């Protein structure tokens, strides 16, 4: 069974090629089926490999499959190979299963859209690239997948490209992540020149053997890799592209900008965590940056009025939690939050899409209201997703993963308690902003026309993910709630044993209280109409500042875009070339003058000849 591992990325790639070549001929029904079934088969394969893995794990819990040699040079070679360990198995399971559900959802959501088969070709290509990213055993191959998902993100954000703003959003997401990827590429080149290989395991072994902890080389290398990860995962200071990326279709946001691609940075750090352990300062920087990101994004989420932008900022904020876990070295906690986040955020995005579908593509939450009785399925799905995002104690999956992270942060030797306090503040804000959406959208009077109905292809993903968002948290529970450790034991071969460190009883208690407090704030402000009033009154300067994501866009406009555009305007007229254009101009003027002498009059020619002769004789005589 496990020998068919290569089929997992190959199936979506194959169907993407088929759809790309023959999609328009096949028609929407067949192309939707081909796109969904290929990912579905990959999911079935991944699940059966996963089940087999649990009963019969391979030696050292690692399975390697070398497909072919890609680049062979003297002293340096790159093999295209797949590397399966618990971390990549978890990623593969999430990508294929959630990817399959989102494909299924898309077949109904995108019904009647132009470019239906093109959409599925892109989405399949994305899944293939993402699977290559997580299965790669070599950083160069990982980078291929890394760029592949970037391209697919660009294509899908700009899917409705006839709207210029969508094209702008696509370009922005592409350019910002590309800037980060340059740093990552530099990191890869540094690692390959210093350690002579990019094979991840060989590279890590070599790094641990040659470099001492805290020395310069691993610090530089991990910083460069980290910048790549920050760009992909939309973390401060490279986060500005994610809210704009919401211009794409909603299932795309669910798959790419919530569940899978944006967590590639987390995966990269976990995959190379041995290297990051050699650079403790970089880990500290990750933790601090993560706290800044999660607070900035949580505040920004508090004042958005577009439902998808709220979810975009919450994605940023939740990935901030994952990076916070990475910063304190709690690798399984980060992966656990990745798992729960993938489930509940995909659920939230899909539900937001399902709501917008019935409301004639309305996305402004203040134009909605009272949808609870009209859309019971969407209400329950969104409520479960929100509860999980807000980390509502016991009943939601998000609670357990966030608790694991905050527990690990509080126990960290660094100024862990300050980071933990910021994390708790973020948790309060998270609960507030998401339940602000829940109350505004589902309570109160009905404001919009509701049309259509949900088919089974919408209902199945929503119900499945809702169940997942409720139960997946029980894979790892803290002490006092069963002390279940299936998840961290599963990951132990890849990232080491995870200890739930003892912390003061106040820590979990406040973890309980924070989401409830946040929901309470949201409800009170909903009841006294503060949320709704904010849309009718003129927003204050502070609100505008926070709504724009704390001014990062304006800052980057001033720092980079404006100088660049000025330079472009100068260079548009090609100042260097004007030197050569001057020569050309001189030749043309001289030519005109000389041509004017050719007037066809013999007497004029004769006088010029005479003048020339006189001049020549004069020169000969007097020189």
């Amino acid at each position, binding site marked *: 069974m496990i020998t068919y591992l290569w089929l997992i990325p190959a199936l979506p790639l194959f169907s993407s090629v088929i759809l790309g070549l023959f999609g328009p001929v096949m028609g929407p029904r067949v192309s939707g089926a081909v796109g969904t079934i290929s990912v579905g088969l990959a999911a079935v394969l991944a699940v059966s490999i996963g089940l087999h893995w649990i009963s019969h794990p391979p030696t050292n819990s690692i399975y390697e499959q070398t497909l072919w040699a890609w680049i062979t040079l003297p002293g340096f070679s790159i093999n295209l190979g797949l590397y399966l360990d618990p971390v990549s198995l978890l990623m593969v399971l999430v990508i294929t299963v959630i990817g399959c559900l989102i494909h299924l959802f898309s077949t109904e959501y995108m019904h009647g859209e132009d470019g239906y088969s093109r959409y599925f070709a892109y989405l399949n290509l994305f899944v293939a690239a993402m699977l290559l990213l997580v299965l790669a055993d070599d950083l160069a191959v990982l980078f291929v997948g890394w760029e592949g998902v970037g391209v697919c993100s660009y294509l899908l954000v700009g899917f409705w490209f006839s709207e210029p703003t969508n094209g702008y959003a696509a370009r922005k997401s592409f350019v910002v992540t590309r800037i980060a990827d340059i740093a990552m590429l530099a990191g890869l080149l540094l690692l390959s020149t210093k350690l002579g290989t990019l094979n991840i395991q060989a590279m890590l072994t070599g790094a641990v053997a040659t470099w001492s902890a805290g020395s310069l080389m691993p610090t530089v290398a991990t910083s460069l890799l980290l910048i790549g990860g920050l760009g992909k995962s939309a973390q401060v200071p490279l986060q500005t592209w994610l809210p704009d990326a919401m211009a794409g279709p909603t299932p795309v946001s669910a798959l790419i900008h919530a569940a899978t691609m944006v967590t590639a940075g987390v995966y990269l750090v976990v995959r190379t965590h041995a290297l990051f352990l050699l650079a403790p300062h970089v880990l500290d920087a990750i933790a601090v940056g993560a706290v800044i990101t999660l607070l900035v994004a949580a505040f920004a989420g508090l004042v958005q009025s577009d439902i998808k932008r709220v979810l975009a900022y919450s994605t940023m904020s939740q990935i901030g939690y994952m990076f916070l876990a990475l910063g304190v070295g709690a690798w399984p906690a980060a992966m656990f939050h990745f798992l729960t986040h993938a489930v509940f955020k995909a659920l939230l995005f899909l539900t937001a899409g399902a709501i917008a579908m019935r409301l004639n593509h309305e996305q402004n939450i203040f134009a909605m209201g009272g949808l609870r009785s009209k859309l019971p399925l969407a209400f329950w799905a969104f409520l479960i997703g929100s509860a999980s995002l807000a980390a509502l104690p016991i009943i939601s999956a998000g609670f357990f993963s966030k608790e694991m992270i905050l527990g690990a942060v509080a126990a960290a030797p660094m100024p862990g308690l300050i980071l933990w306090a910021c994390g708790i503040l973020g948790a309060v804000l998270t609960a507030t902003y998401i339940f602000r959406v829940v109350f505004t959208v589902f309570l109160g009077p009905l404001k919009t026309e509701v049309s259509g109905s949900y088919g089974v292809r919408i209902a199945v993903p929503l119900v499945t993910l809702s169940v997942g968002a409720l139960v997946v948290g029980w894979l790892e529970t803290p002490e006092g709630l069963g002390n279940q450790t299936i998840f961290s034991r599963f990951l132990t071969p890849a990232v080491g044993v995870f200890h739930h460190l003892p912390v003061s009883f106040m820590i979990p208690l406040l973890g309980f209280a924070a989401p409830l407090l946040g929901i309470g704030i949201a409800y009170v402000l909903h009841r006294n109409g503060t949320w709704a009033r904010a849309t009718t009154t003129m927003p204050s300067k502070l609100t505008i500042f926070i709504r724009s994501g704390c001014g990062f866009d304006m800052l980057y406009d001033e720092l980079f875009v404006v100088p660049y555009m000025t330079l472009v305007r100068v260079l548009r007229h090609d100042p260097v070339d004007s030197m050569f254009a001057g020569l050309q101009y001189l030749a043309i003027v001289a030519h005109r003058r000389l*041509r004017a002498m050719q007037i066809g009059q*013999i007497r004029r020619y004769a006088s010029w000849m*005479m003048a020339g002769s006189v001049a020549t004789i004069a020169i000969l005589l007097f020189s």
Partner: protein
Amino acid sequence: MIIWQTPAGLALALFMLGLLGLLARRSLVFVLMSIEIMLNAAGLLFITAGMRWGNPDGQIMLVMVLNLAGAELALGLILILRLRNRITNLDGDAANILRDVP
């Protein structure tokens, strides 16, 4: 004994006259005659030079120049006749259809 400056001055005067005629006259026949005068001025200068240095080469050159002038005259007259068919008069300035059109 004639001093060489006199014929040389005569040659210069003839050449200048020919040149003046060439530049001033529009009729092609006169232009041709002016060229002949200039050629004869050159021939006279050859003779004078031969006299000055007592060398017969100057006279040989004159014979050659005269031959050349005869041939050139015949050719020039043919061209004038041909041109007359086209432009109906002998105005050299009117024969400017080969000019570069700006």
